[in-house]
Structure formats: structure tokens, C-alpha cells
């Protein structure tokens, strides 16, 4: 009898609350500041394009990206500040605000939309969640969570997220449109440890509405909690 009680208690002890899981995921995926060199490979059927960029981020609401390759896009910059996204296009030496329907287009033709770029990964704040099971996903033992948006302001009203039990980061996500259709899937892998933080350094995004389309994002030389110049997140930096 004692053995059974101990077993039941141990199982409950191993199942954290959904809030705890979300807090852990948020702690891993969010940061004060981060810099990274990113390689983004966009595959659309026959065409493969490789982009290289420097990324700077501060908190959930400020991010800046500068493209280094390919040659055609070298010097292109993007600045996310608050709820707005700006893009500097070197070929016309002009800053353009990305808004309206443009936000739903793929960033540089990738499966990652500008809207995705605007989205924060603060699950706890944005979604109500329930644990719907424990499953193995991408070779990792995971909690399967169903997340429902608390407000209409988020890009995806519903998402199913598989959270790695060990690293407490998402390893697979299915993102739904309002109609209930899966519109995107994310696979996150190659988790690296940065101090106490675990962070997936490889993400593969597939737009389910486009056949043969896939975007791989590789984070290279990533650093967290680094000092960043204030100017990086200003309009001045865009057309500097």
C-alpha cells in the first residue's frame, strides 16, 4: 500500500502545473538582451536562398536585424519597436513601415512572416494553456500543451506546443488560424545551454499553405545579456 501511495505521489510530483511549464518556457525563450548571427535558408521547391544576418534583441518588444547576404539584400535592415516594424531598403535608400497586409507576407520570402517577427514568445501572458498529454516528439519526451489566446491581438488564436521535459523549450509547434486550420508548424532543435538558459539554436518553419516551402533558421554565435547600444533600436540606426 505504501509503495502504491509513494508511486502516485512521485508521479504527481513529476507533473508540474501548466503555469510552471509556461514560466519555465518563457524564462528560457525570453531575455533581456541577445545578439546572434543567424543563417536563414529558405527553400521553395526548386529555389533555395540563404540569408545571413546579425540580430539584436532587447526584451520582447525591441529587435533589430541587419542582412549581410546575399549580395542583393546586403544592408537591408529591420527594426521592430513596440507594435511597429520598419524596414530599410538600401537599393532605394528608404525606410518603409511594414503594416497592414504586408505583415502577413513572408519575411524575405521565407515561411516566417513579418507578423511572426512581431510576435513575442511570452506564452504565460498571451495564452491560456492546458496539458493534454505526454508524448515523444522529435525524439524528446515532451508535455503536449494546448494554448488558446487570451485576446484577439495575437497572430495565432490557437497553438499546440510540445515542450521538452528536460530543457523546458518548445520542440514542435502547430499554429492554427481562426478557422481551425493548421497554418504553420515549427520544429525547434539543437538546444544549447547558455548559463542557466536552454535555447534551441535551430528552427525549421513550414508554411502549411505552401507546398514545398520550408525555412531553416540557425542561430550562430549567440550571446545573452550583452550590453547593446541604445542607437541600435532607433530609426537613426536604420538609415545609418
Amino acid at each position, binding site marked *: 500500500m505504501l509503495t502504491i501511495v509513494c508511486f502516485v505521489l512521485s508521479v504527481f510530483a513529476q507533473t508540474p502545473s501548466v503555469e510552471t511549464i509556461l514560466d519555465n518556457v518563457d524564462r528560457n525563450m525570453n531575455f533581456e538582451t541577445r545578439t546572434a548571427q543567424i543563417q536563414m535558408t529558405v527553400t521553395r521547391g*526548386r529555389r533555395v*536562398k540563404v540569408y545571413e544576418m546579425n540580430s539584436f534583441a532587447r526584451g520582447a518588444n525591441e529587435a533589430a536585424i541587419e542582412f549581410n547576404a546575399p549580395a542583393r539584400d546586403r544592408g537591408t535592415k529591420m527594426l521592430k519597436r513596440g507594435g511597429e516594424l520598419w524596414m530599410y531598403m538600401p*537599393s*532605394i535608400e*528608404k525606410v518603409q513601415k511594414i503594416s497592414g497586409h504586408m505583415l502577413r*507576407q513572408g519575411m524575405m520570402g521565407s515561411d516566417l512572416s513579418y507578423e511572426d517577427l512581431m510576435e513575442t514568445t511570452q506564452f504565460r501572458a498571451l495564452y491560456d494553456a492546458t496539458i493534454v498529454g505526454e508524448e515523444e516528439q522529435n525524439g524528446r519526451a515532451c508535455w503536449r500543451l494546448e494554448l488558446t489566446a487570451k485576446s484577439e491581438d495575437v497572430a495565432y488564436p490557437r497553438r499546440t506546443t510540445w515542450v521538452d521535459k528536460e530543457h523546458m523549450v518548445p520542440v514542435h509547434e502547430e499554429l492554427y488560424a481562426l478557422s481551425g486550420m493548421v497554418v504553420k508548424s515549427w520544429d525547434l532543435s539543437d538546444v544549447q545551454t547558455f548559463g542557466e538558459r536552454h535555447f534551441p539554436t535551430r528552427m525549421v518553419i513550414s508554411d502549411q499553405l505552401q507546398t*514545398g516551402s520550408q525555412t531553416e533558421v540557425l542561430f550562430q554565435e549567440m550571446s545573452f545579456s550583452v550590453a547593446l547600444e541604445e542607437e541600435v533600436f532607433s530609426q537613426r540606426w536604420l538609415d545609418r
Partner: protein
Amino acid sequence: MKTVFLLAVRNTLRNSRRSALTAATVFFGCALLTIGLSWVVGIQGNFIAASVRANGHVRLVTQAHADREALQPIYENISQTDSLVTEIEAMDDVQAAFPRIQMGVMASVDGEEVGEVFGQIVGAPITYFDTVLSLEEKLIDGRFFSEGQAAQNEGLIGRSLARDMGVKAGEEAIFLGQTQDGSISPIRVTVVGVVDTGTGLFDKQVFVPLSKAQWMADIPEGAVEILIYGSNRRSSTRIISQLTPRLEAMAQRVNLIDIEGESTGLSISSWNTREPFASMLRIARIIMTTVAIIIVFITALGVLNTMLMSVLERTAEIGVLRSMGMKVGQVVFMFALEAIFIATIGGAMGVIVGSLGSIAMEASGVDLGSAVSNLPDTVPANRVLHPDWSPALSLIAFALGVVMAFIGSASPALRAARIQPVIAMRTRR
């Protein structure tokens, strides 16, 4: 027979007021028919001319592009066009072939916010803008493209788009489009001229050298389509029959692959088989036939009315003629001849007046104004519509006028022929 002929002539002149009424009916019928047919042919011709100008007598695209035509997918493109254009231009019946890229863009004057004005960019060899679209003749401000490389960053802009953007010749404009991969792609263009093409579609376009559009779409050596022009639009059938056996080899040579990575072929289509023009042509034919039938019917009713009056008036006379040995066929022929005499005079006058009216309207045209600008971008409708009169149309209208009279007189003539001579002679008429 001579007697019947003379009787018909006499009857024509006998009741001049009734004959004039019949002639007037045919006159209005023929005049209306001439004008109506001129308009239908004119409107159809305007659409055809604009369609051919915009899309070539024959158009070559990838099969994958043809399958997704409605989406205007620039990612389904012909990655190398030079060798194909050279081969096509060497073919009999082909006068010219032009690679072209078209896509929707957001437009603004340099220095202003992009995002309010939408237009369409057209990238093609400058000879296409010159010889096919005749843009130099349609300049209302500024000048045509410079010679050679100097034209690289120049553009001509349609009247409506220029107005919406608030851009003038000599100013710089920004156009925000997409690469074939879907990435935002901007270009800066010096607007050297503003053109008034008279066509709603072209007036919302900006015309740039092919190389500029190739950069914007990131198709460095290719285009979305190749437009092929023969000596006239009837040559499209011959061009297609020559080109069809070569398509497979052409597709293999440029290694065509669709967006999903699958091998794709080339697709050719004649100007009159592509939508929406194929449907428009069918509709125009239906309208033309309906107009003709309605006018013929109304006119025939008028003729029937007056001829019936004539038969009723002459019942006793017909009885006498029949009793004197005139056969049923001769009576029918006599009335038909009378109707045809009247129709010939009324129809000829009607056709003359209708032709003069059509020719006058052909010169002035009817300006549809802003109504045309609301048409979809795929419909190149001219802003000013003209009827298209031709002697053949007048002949058709005249022949139909005579047919109207014949149809209108048939029933009264048969009625007259069926009258029993004895009964007819008893009547007071």
C-alpha cells in the same frame, strides 16, 4: 411573270402613303441595324485590339503558370528567355517576340509614404513599348526612354497612376514589388514621361526596361511570359502550329521547373482563347445576333402590318385576278415583290443614313470616363469607344432589310393567295 412584275410596281405606287409607311419602317430598321452592328463590331474590335496589344497574338508561359493564371504567379517563370526569343523570332510568320514581366506594386513619389497607391509594373524591351504599345505617340508629359543604357533607371507612367501618385515627368518614384521568392523588392525610377493610352489598364501601369523588372522580380535572365506577334491576329493559328512541336525541346533546353520542384513544360495560347477575352468575344457575338434579331423582328412586324392592310384592301381585286387565272404562286410573288420594292427604297435610304451616323460617331467616339478605370486589371478596355462601320456591315443591314420585308409580307401574301375567288369578289373591298 411580266404582268405580275408590272402589277407589283403598280401596287407599290398605288397607295403612296401606305408604301411610304412600309418604307419608313424598313428605313428605321436598316438605319438602326447599321448603327447597332457598327457599335457591336466597334466595341468588340476595341477589346480585341487592346487585348492583342497587351498580350500578343500568341503568348508563351510555363505550364505551371498557365495552371495558376488567376494568381499571376511570377514564381512560375521562364528562367532564361534569350535563346527562346531568338528561336521564335526566326520562325516564319513571327514578326517579333518580347519577354515581359508584370506584377502589382505599391507606388509613391520619392520622399512620401509608400502604401496608398497601387499600380502594375510592366517590364519589357523598350522596342515593345515603342512598336507595340506606341507609347511615344501617347506621351502627354515629358519624353520617351533614352537610348541604350541611359534608359536603365527610366520609366514611363500611365496617366491614372501618375495622377493617383501625384508624380510628374522628371520626378523620382518608388515602386515596391516582390521578388519571385516573395521578398519585398523596391526600385527607384525616374519618371521621364506620362502617357495617356486611352485604355484603363495601361493607364494604371508603369513601364520600365526589362532589366529593371528582372532585378525587381529577381529573375536575372528570364521573364514571366513571352509575347509573340505575327503580321496580323489571324497569323496566331499558323504560329501556334509551328511552335507546338518545338515546345518540349524548348522547355528542356531552359530546364523549366515549377515552384514545387517538378519539371514543367511550356504552354502557348492564342489571343482569342485566353480569358477573359474568349468569354468577351462569345458575349459580343451573342449581343450582335440578339440586336440583329430584335431589329429584324420589330421591322418585320411593321411591314407585316402595312402589307396586311394592303391585302385586306385588295381582297376583291385578288378575287378577280384569281378568277382570271392568276395562280396562287403568282399572287404570293406579286405581294412579295411589292414588299421588296418598298424595302429596297426604304432599306437603301436607311443604310445610307445609318452609315453616315456610324461614320460620324466613329470619328467622335463615346468617352466612358472613369467607368473604365473600375474594370479589373485583366481587362484592357479603351476609355473612348468607337463604332466600326464598314461597307460589309451596310450590305448586311440592307440584305436583312429586304429579308425583313420578305418575312413581313409572307403571311399577308399567303393569306391573299388562299382567298377563294368567288368569296373574294363578293366583298366590297
